[in-house]
């Protein structure tokens, strides 16, 4: 069954078709949310909320855009909300001054991004830290565009549509994000 037939079947209430539709996209959705939010629990929440919204609103989906774009619009909106909330939380200082000296609270937070992979260990800690610092420093929009382009392989046109903006604006976000990374990693490239 092709995707359109699957969507129409799911719209007509076929649960099996809906489940197949979910399975076509859910690993990518979860990877995007995990990459962006850097928290498995937040990614879990985004996954659940995104597919529940898809389930509830699927009867209203009219094929005006691709299903992929529509789904990522939902996922992106949810991730943007989470990222903005995170930014607010991040204004708390990470380093606390105590009687025994400075304590970095972030140092005690377990990294949930699967650093046990050998490939990851290959990447020198310095490069990895710098990339991470730059990505964290990007605006929410730049970050979304960069993740969708580099890690999800989406086209800029589609990214623009799913973020509710133009291809040109997505392109500019990508330029800015790349320039920042280039300048921060300068000597290492």
């Amino acid at each position, binding site marked *: 069954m092709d995707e359109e037939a699957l969507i*129409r079947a799911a*719209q*007509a*209430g*076929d*649960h*099996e078709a*809906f*489940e197949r539709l*979910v*399975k076509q996209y*859910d*690993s990518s959705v*979860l*990877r995007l949310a*995990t*990459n962006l939010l850097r928290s*498995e629990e937040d*990614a*879990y929440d985004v*996954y*659940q909320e995104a*597919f*529940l919204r898809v*389930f*509830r609103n699927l*009867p*209203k989906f*009219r094929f005006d855009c691709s299903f992929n774009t529509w789904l990522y619009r939902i996922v992106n909106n949810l991730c943007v909300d989470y990222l903005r909330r995170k930014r607010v939380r991040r204004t708390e200082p990470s380093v606390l001054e105590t009687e025994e000296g400075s304590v970095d609270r972030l140092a005690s937070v377990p990294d949930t*991004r*699967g650093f046990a*992979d*050998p*490939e*990851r*260990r*290959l*990447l020198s800690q310095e*490069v*990895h830290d710098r*990339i991470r610092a730059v990505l964290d420093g990007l605006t929410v929009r730049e970050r979304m565009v960069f993740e969708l*382009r*580099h*890690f999800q392989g989406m*086209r*800029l046109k589609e990214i623009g549509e799913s973020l509710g903006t133009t291809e040109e604006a997505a*392109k500019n976000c*990508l*330029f800015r994000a*790349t320039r920042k*990374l*280039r300048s921060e*990693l300068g000597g290492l*490239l």
Partner: protein
Amino acid sequence: MNCETIKDLLVLLNCGELSFEEEETVESHVESCTACRAERQRLQRLDAFLELETTAVPSDLLARCRRDLRARLAREAPHRTWFSPVALWQSIGSIPWLKPTGALALLAVGFMSGRIGGGVSDRLMGPGPVQLSSAHSVSAQTGTPTEAEPTTASPEGSQVSYRPITQTQSAAEPNDARMRNLLLAAINDQDPALRVDSIDLLQHRCSDETVRRALLTALKSDKNSGVRLKALDALRPYAQNPETRVVLAGVVLNDNSPTIRAQAIDLLVQSRGTDVASTLQEVLRREENPYIRERSVNALRAMKASAGTF
């Protein structure tokens, strides 16, 4: 076109976002401009670094997400109208000449159902018997996955069969042979999350030869690297078993995931078999991944075996 513009276009070139003409312009500029050529190489190295940043989705997280979504959808389902006039109208709308005919047909249905009383939806969703059957079930007797056929019997003659996304749970003693068969069958399910869960439940039963062989098959040939990794973990206590060592050697040499190859090397080294050194030497002959090579060299050194002749 100046170098600043080309530098921006190089970003798009790397992403495959340029038209044929733009690509030609950039390529011919880069050929004659050393600075832009260097910039292109830097961007390619940046891409290589970013490639390493790509995270794999943890298979247990994906399994948990799917399981919980199924449960939540099952709770949502009663609020969803199975007979969806909107969806039906949309389907009709995709065939232009059918729309007026469809409108008349819907009017007729509405009129007739009003006359009869109770309406179409009462007939469809009413109190008559509705049998729910899960989309996939596994026969406990044979352990063979089967597609369930939804059947209903209703004295009124109006029936609806549907397949909800629900989780089927079974409870049994760990040593129950039927449960073991169910789990063994689930290792071949099309859903990788279910395969991972099954291996998770079976991993304490690797002393059972059938279970161990099923896990070895999963490690050797499952298409999903998460499943293979789970099988590898489950087989850790049996690394010294000759059959396991043979499979591990094959994985070390042939698996397409460097993560799995690296972990298989560790396990093989722990097994202290006499054939480990020759396997690692073969790795050094074939392997391109520098990390795996380094790991093999270190293991060979620790075994005081030769690594330098390659």
